[in-house]
């Protein structure tokens, strides 16, 4: 099955680290994906207004592109993009009236009926590689690294589109971390919203929420946190220390960066310069970035 890749706007610039590590890892695992041509911004949030379909055009058009490319599925990394595309896809599959309206509106485009599957990178990894194969390809086991998996909201809710298909009890990130040799540490707020766009509108309140999430992880004794969204990474990572409540620093990575490091691809594919201060340093101290280790 051909797999298209939808990056989304932020992954080409500020979240280049998420993308570079992800694509390098796919190559190392011989999983082929092809970036969509002419993709557009998905809109970042799924419109919840039932009477206004114009906001659905952006995500649906990307799905049309995937169909035009002959792809059976489109994979994405950013949790927000995943959420919007997956829910847009559900809409096109389940609501006949809205599907007709949107196809008629986009009359110059191919008609779309939900033919393409929207998958998150984690699900693609599990389906195409599987944890056993991944474990065998690990060159730099992340031994002793206690990692908090942060899902946030967009990867999980609504449950119809939740990654791993596990509803309220996702384990897919934990399974990945275990395969990489790390120790996943579940924590109470791992499914809580980081604050998302409230960082723009109500920054003080949003930062307080983010600080709570980080504190919750630290309370379980972790060395690091991983996540899958540039906005989560900004709220929980880069803006650590900006909240009124003070929280000790916790290095935050995209899960793809730990994946790339564990596969022995080294820091070159990870763009740690785009992470928060201290992120690269932790991995260096633990010897995971030592070039001589990777075969």
């Amino acid at each position, binding site marked *: 099955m051909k797999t298209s890749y939808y990056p*989304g*706007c*932020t992954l080409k*610039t*500020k*979240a280049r680290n998420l993308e570079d590590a992800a694509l390098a890892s796919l190559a190392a695992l011989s999983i082929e994906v092809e970036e969509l041509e002419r993709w557009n*911004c998905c*809109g*970042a*949030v*799924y*419109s*919840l*207004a*039932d*009477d*206004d379909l114009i*906001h659905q055009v952006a995500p649906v058009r990307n799905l049309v592109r995937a169909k035009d490319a002959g792809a059976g599925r489109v994979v994405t990394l*950013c949790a*927000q*993009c995943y959420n919007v595309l997956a829910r847009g896809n559900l809409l096109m599959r389940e609501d006949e009236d809205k599907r007709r309206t949107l196809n008629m509106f986009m009359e110059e485009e191919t008609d779309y009926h939900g033919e393409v599957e929207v998958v998150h990178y984690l699900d693609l990894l599990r389906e195409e590689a599987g944890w056993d194969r991944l474990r065998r390809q690990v060159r730099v086991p992340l031994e002793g690294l206690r990692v908090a998996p942060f899902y946030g*909201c967009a990867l999980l*809710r*609504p*449950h119809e589109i939740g990654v791993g298909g596990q*509803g*309220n009890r996702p384990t897919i990130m934990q399974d990945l971390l275990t395969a990489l040799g790390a120790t996943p540490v579940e924590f109470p707020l791992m*499914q*809580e*919203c980081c*604050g*998302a*766009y*409230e*960082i*723009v*509108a*109500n*920054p003080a*309140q*949003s930062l307080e*929420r983010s600080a709570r999430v980080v504190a919750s992880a630290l309370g379980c004794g972790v060395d690091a946190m991983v996540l899958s*969204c*540039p*906005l989560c*990474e*900004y709220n929980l990572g*880069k803006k650590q220390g900006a909240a009124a409540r003070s929280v000790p620093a916790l290095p935050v990575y995209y899960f793809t960066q730990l994946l790339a490091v564990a596969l022995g691809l080294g820091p070159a594919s990870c763009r740690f310069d785009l992470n928060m201060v201290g992120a690269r340093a932790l991995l260096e101290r633990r010897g995971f970035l030592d070039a001589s280790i990777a075969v």
Partner: protein
Amino acid sequence: MAVQMLLSELDETILHKVAEISNQNIYRCMQCGTCTAVCPMVTDMEITPQRVVALLQHGIVDPLMESRTPWLCASCLTCQVRCPRGIELPRVMEAIRQLMLRRRHDQLSPRSIPSASLAELPQIALVAGFRKLTG
């Protein structure tokens, strides 16, 4: 919080609009309060999610139009997945937001964002913020 109710003030048009935009039947709500219990933004909301629905059930919309609650909602859907009645509360919040936004009461202005923030914010924050908080 005490709210005075007068039957003559029941605003059916706006209630219909909320129902139309949200496609939700808020009369299913049994006021269990789970939505409020799980909401990550609730501590800053002067009207809790549970109260929002209670007010709507009684046809009272004005306090909601003036409340910070719909604008603090991060659309995280935790309330939705927990509601025992299957009410999609985020859609109700969106409807209240749309009632204001379609009257051109934008909640976010590009000029209000410090340039330092603009430089460092991921694009999705701005796209999402403007889509949710402006008309």
